[in-house]
């Protein structure tokens, strides 16, 4: 009995609200940024330069143009960061007037400031995009290797949103962090300049920071709840509509229209109520942040003006302060926006890491045995007992051997363990060592990939990948040339219908493959496995209805497929069973009978009874379709 740990897959369904900050997650996220450290540092360096230039622009206007040129009262005591000297130097070298020189400085500073900003943004975006591309790659690759037992229990949609939407939330988070850098650097530079000019006035203005900060905090707290309620009602609305659309005929035939509309209206009203709450909050907060900052202008006129009158600061400095006003609360606003993003991002991060940390896998041997280039194709099952859940075995002590080139038909009622048998052979689940052998080698000593490249599996449902017919046959394997793929299709008689399609082998198929019939899908599945040319073939014969003509074509193709190949067929059709070398009867996970048709008939057991019933493979529905 294989050791199967009971794993709780329900966490993939769990709804995660998330916490604001999880340093552990942040550290892990930065692991993807780390390889791009150089370009990230460059980006931060660029924003420092750009911000410095941005801060100097109003200094040029106020200290050079207003104080120096217009009022002609440059105050040497007040800091101007060398802009006056620079103007004088340019004027001296070129012979231009001070005003023209100042204009030139302003123009050049502006130009470089925005070039650097641009370079910063572009490099930063590149860093983040590359990091997330890698994260997405790692996540996808990880999920691609989770075993069948995982996908048996977790819905595809839940895995998909982790790779798509949740990684996208990381994008918002990281870009937001970049934005914070872009806001905070000029903030501190500006603050330094203001403090250097007038400490008292700056301190008065700084009262705004805690006030606006607190208001932003409370606003975010309040809106978080409302936004969550809005999200809930919106998703309920969508679910309701979606379900109603899917079952519309039932709704109409049951006269449920009014009642359902009533339910929908109720959710919609709920949504409206919360939307209106959000509007009241958002509008008040937005207007407050947009406008209240201008009160600072009054403070500057009053207090700054007072200082100017006492000649402590220049008139230019007063104007300079008025230009810095906006910069003062921007970081708070941006911080507030980031707060919500942070919550969502942390929830997403939790989901991403949950998936990445999910280590359920098919055990691969540490030192795998390499199989020879070509197998003989002998298979042995030796006392195999297996169950998906511990304590509930599906197969009991199964032992039998298949000789190279032999065709074995497996028959048995639903739930007898036929499908499990072939899934194990494909190494889709973990089972005990020393129970299944390929040419005498324990297949647990081989890598899953090696086993699967030797064993071709044709399942009942042929999965179509979006792409051409050719892509679907070769699955993009470079070892399979176009000619080989077409040859495979010809061998299984799929050629004629493919050539009949508008673009032949280049016809594009869509995932659900509505443009192909059951029989055509079956033939394509044959072509796919034939092109891969495995030494061993496993086939789960389709039970679905196929018209008699196609049926003949398929039986023909099957013969080609089975020729000189060890094969196990889960048979549903009499013809298939009769043409097999040996027949294995499985019931309740145990081997009941095994032998050729004649041997089993002589045994007068289950198979005999079966035959006595004169069964025929054609299901009832097909007779009239």
């Amino acid at each position, binding site marked *: 009995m294989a050791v199967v740990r009971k794993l709780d897959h329900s966490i993939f369904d769990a709804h995660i609200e998330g916490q604001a900050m999880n340093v552990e997650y942040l550290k892990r996220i930065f692991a993807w940024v780390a390889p791009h450290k150089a370009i990230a540092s460059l980006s931060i360096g660029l924003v420092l330069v750009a911000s410095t230039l941005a801060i100097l622009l109003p200094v040029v206007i106020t200290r050079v143009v*207003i104080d120096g040129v217009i009022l002609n009262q440059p105050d040497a005591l007040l800091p101007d960061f060398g802009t006056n000297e620079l103007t004088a130097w340019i004027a001296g070298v070129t012979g231009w007037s001070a005003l*023209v020189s100042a*204009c030139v400085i*302003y*123009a050049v500073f*502006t130009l470089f400031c*925005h070039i650097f*900003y641009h370079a910063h*943004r572009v490099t930063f*975006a*590149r860093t983040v*995009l590359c990091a997330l*591309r890698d994260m*997405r*790659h790692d996540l996808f690759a990880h999920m*691609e*290797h989770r075993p069948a037992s995982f*996908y048996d229990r977790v819905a595809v949609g839940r895995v*998909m949103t982790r790779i*798509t939407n949740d990684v996208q939330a990381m994008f918002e988070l990281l870009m937001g962090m970049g934005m914070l850098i872009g806001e905070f650097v000029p903030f501190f530079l500006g603050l330094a300049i203001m403090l250097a000019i007038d400490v008292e006035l700056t301190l008065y203005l700084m009262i705004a920071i805690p006030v606006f900060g607190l208001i932003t905090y409370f606003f975010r707290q309040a809106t978080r709840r409302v936004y969550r309620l809005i999200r809930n009602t919106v998703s309920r*609305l*969508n679910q309701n509509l979606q*379900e109603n*659309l899917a*079952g*519309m*005929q*039932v709704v*109409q*035939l049951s*006269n449920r229209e009014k009642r359902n*509309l009533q339910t929908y*209206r109720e959710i919609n*009203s709920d949504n409206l109520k919360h*939307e*209106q709450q959000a*509007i*009241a909050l958002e509008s008040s907060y937005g*207007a*407050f942040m947009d*406008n*209240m900052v*201008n009160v600072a*202008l*009054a403070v500057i*006129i009053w207090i700054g*003006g007072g200082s100017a*009158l006492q000649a402590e600061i220049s*008139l230019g400095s007063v104007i300079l302060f008025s230009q810095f006003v906006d910069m003062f609360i921007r970081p708070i606003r941006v911080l507030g926006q980031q707060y919500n993003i942070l919550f969502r991002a942390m929830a997403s991060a939790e989901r991403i890491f949950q998936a990445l940390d999910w280590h359920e896998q098919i055990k691969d041997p540490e030192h795998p045995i390499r199989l020879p280039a070509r197998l003989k194709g002998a298979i042995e099952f030796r006392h195999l007992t297996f169950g998906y859940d511990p304590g509930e075995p599906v197969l009991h002590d199964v032992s039998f051997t298949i000789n190279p080139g032999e065709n074995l038909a497996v028959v048995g*009622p*639903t739930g007898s363990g036929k499908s499990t048998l072939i899934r194990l052979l494909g190494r*889709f689940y973990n089972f005990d060592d020393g129970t299944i052998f390929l040419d005498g080698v324990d297949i647990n000593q081989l890598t899953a990939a090696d086993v*699967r490249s030797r064993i071709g599996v044709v399942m009942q449902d042929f*999965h179509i*990948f979006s792409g051409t017919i050719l892509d679907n046959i070769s*699955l993009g*394997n470079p070892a399979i040339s176009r000619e080989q793929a077409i040859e495979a299709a010809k061998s299984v008689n799929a050629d004629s219908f493919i050539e009949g399609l508008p673009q032949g082998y280049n016809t594009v198929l869509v*995932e659900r493959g509505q443009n192909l019939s059951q029989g055509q899908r079956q033939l394509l599945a044959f072509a*796919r496995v034939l092109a891969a040319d495995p030494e061993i073939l496993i086939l789960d014969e389709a039970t679905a209805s196929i018209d008699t003509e196609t049926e003949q074509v398929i039986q023909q193709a099957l013969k080609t497929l089975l020729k000189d190949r060890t094969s196990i067929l889960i048979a549903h059709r009499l013809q298939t069973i009769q043409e097999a070398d040996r027949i294995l009867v499985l019931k309740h996970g145990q081997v009941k009978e095994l032998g050729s048709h004649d041997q089993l008939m002589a045994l007068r057991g289950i198979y005999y009874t079966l035959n006595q019933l004169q069964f025929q493979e054609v299901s009832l529905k097909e007779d*009239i379709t």
Partner: protein
Amino acid sequence: MGSLLRLSIYLKRYAWSFWLAVAGMLISRIFEGFIPLFVKNGIDNIAAGQTALTSGSIDYQSALNTLAAPAISIVICVLIQMGTTIAYRIAMRRIGVIASYDLRNRLYQHLQLQGPIFFSRHSIGDLMARAINDINLCREILAGAIRMTLILAMTALVGLTFMFTLSVNLTLAILLPMPLIGAVAWYFSKKIYAASYLVQEGFSTLSTFVQENLNGIRTVQSMAQEEREIERFDQVNQEFADRNLDLFNMTSFLSAIMPILAASGTLIIIGYGSVLLERGEITVGTFAAFFSYLALVLWPVREAGSLVTQWQRGASGTARLFEILDYEPEIQDQPSLDFPEPSGRIQVQNLTYRYEDKEKYALEDVSFEVSPGETIALLGRVGSGKSTLLRLFVRLLEPTSGQIYLDGHPINGFPLARLRERVCMVLQDPFLFADSLSDNIAYDDPNRDHQEILEIAHAAALEETIEGFPEGLNTVLGERGVTLSGGQKQRAALARGLIRRSPILILDDCFSAVDTETEEKILSGLKKVRSQATTLLVSHRVSTARHADRIIVLEEGRIIEMGSHTDLLAAGGFYANLEASQRNRLDLVSRLDEAAS
């Protein structure tokens, strides 16, 4: 663009809010325009005070007092501006959300009136996209685009008015580069829109790829294709990253070029303003105020481009939404005033039906009669018109010509709800809602009592299923609950129809996943429960059809055989052949089960 006018009903409905909002916008803009003016006054007063203090004509306190008026005025302007801004934003956004609320209800109600033809044209995904995205776009137009357009226009107007009052010459000079700035913004906002569309498209390609891959994960793994799939994923992933980067480059470039171009305005103020200042045409305060006004005027110039795209997107969203809302339902409920209580007597007269996109008739000139209490079995190949015929009985489809009568009255004379209550149809596809089993069975009327539901479940051979459930009848079905097998689903759907005890019951091949034995058990049970009722059923099994009073065989939309089991066997046609071929043919799997037990 015409579709946008359809949204004007919401502006009319909330005309008071709307016009008050417009007034609020104007007031807020005007007071916003006053603020730089008072700052200018303050600065001029400081300058004058400095001069006066130097000459000693005034003391410090009186000079400081001249600053009080501008400072207080600024605070007043800010408060008024804030108050009006809050008011108009709330008013406009409210109109937006109320409109989206109303549009959602309208859409929902409208969709419920549509028939199968409509739903074959519009997939659920398509309709969901309209319900989510397009209604949002409508809301954005009402709450966002209209407001922004008005505000931008007013801001420009107010800004220019104040500037012209202060200095005509300087204003004219500043306006010079504006057309260029506007044109650049316009050009880039178009390109950015296109780029962001590509990003969205890239994202959906990525999602589709992942979904498709995971759906086929077993095939991928069994063919050992994981690494190749990862490689293919990398291409899609890289493409998405590249498109994002393109978009970022473009938006970033726009954010860089805009202030560079705007700097021309600043340079004009510095250069030309200084000249004017020297000439005494303007004061230092005016000089400073122009920097603020420049920002005010630049804003609309910058935003115009993206606003236009917002209008365009809104217009196409509105058009898509109203395309659905304007679609005339295929089935019109126009009952006549007098209609009888159906007894179960049906006459079908020259019934013909052709699907719009097909040339061949699905039904051609079909006529027959059914007496109350009779059971009719319909047989025929796939596509012979069985389902079409059944759907016509409950008016999911309207006949091209011909008519169905219940007790002599044409069925379109009955109110639709009454018709569907009296003629109950169980569909081929057993769709169940993600509710409890009992909610699903009592779907037509949630107030039915437990005992009744249990009884019907019994008649539909569901008792074992219910016993096996953790919470019996109250067990929730679907993704988050238990999953039923195909046969269980069909029986639950059957129970949903049976509970209505309608005089006419129509079963569209709803035993296909139920084994023969259970089917016979249900059918014989049915006879007892519904002794007086008329039943029409489609089946593929002769074993089922033989129990019917009469059998109708359809072929290419026409009746080719009609009569009792023995009559048709004697006639030696399609039915007789079918019977012969089915007599000894039994399903391998079920025989195996039998043989093994």
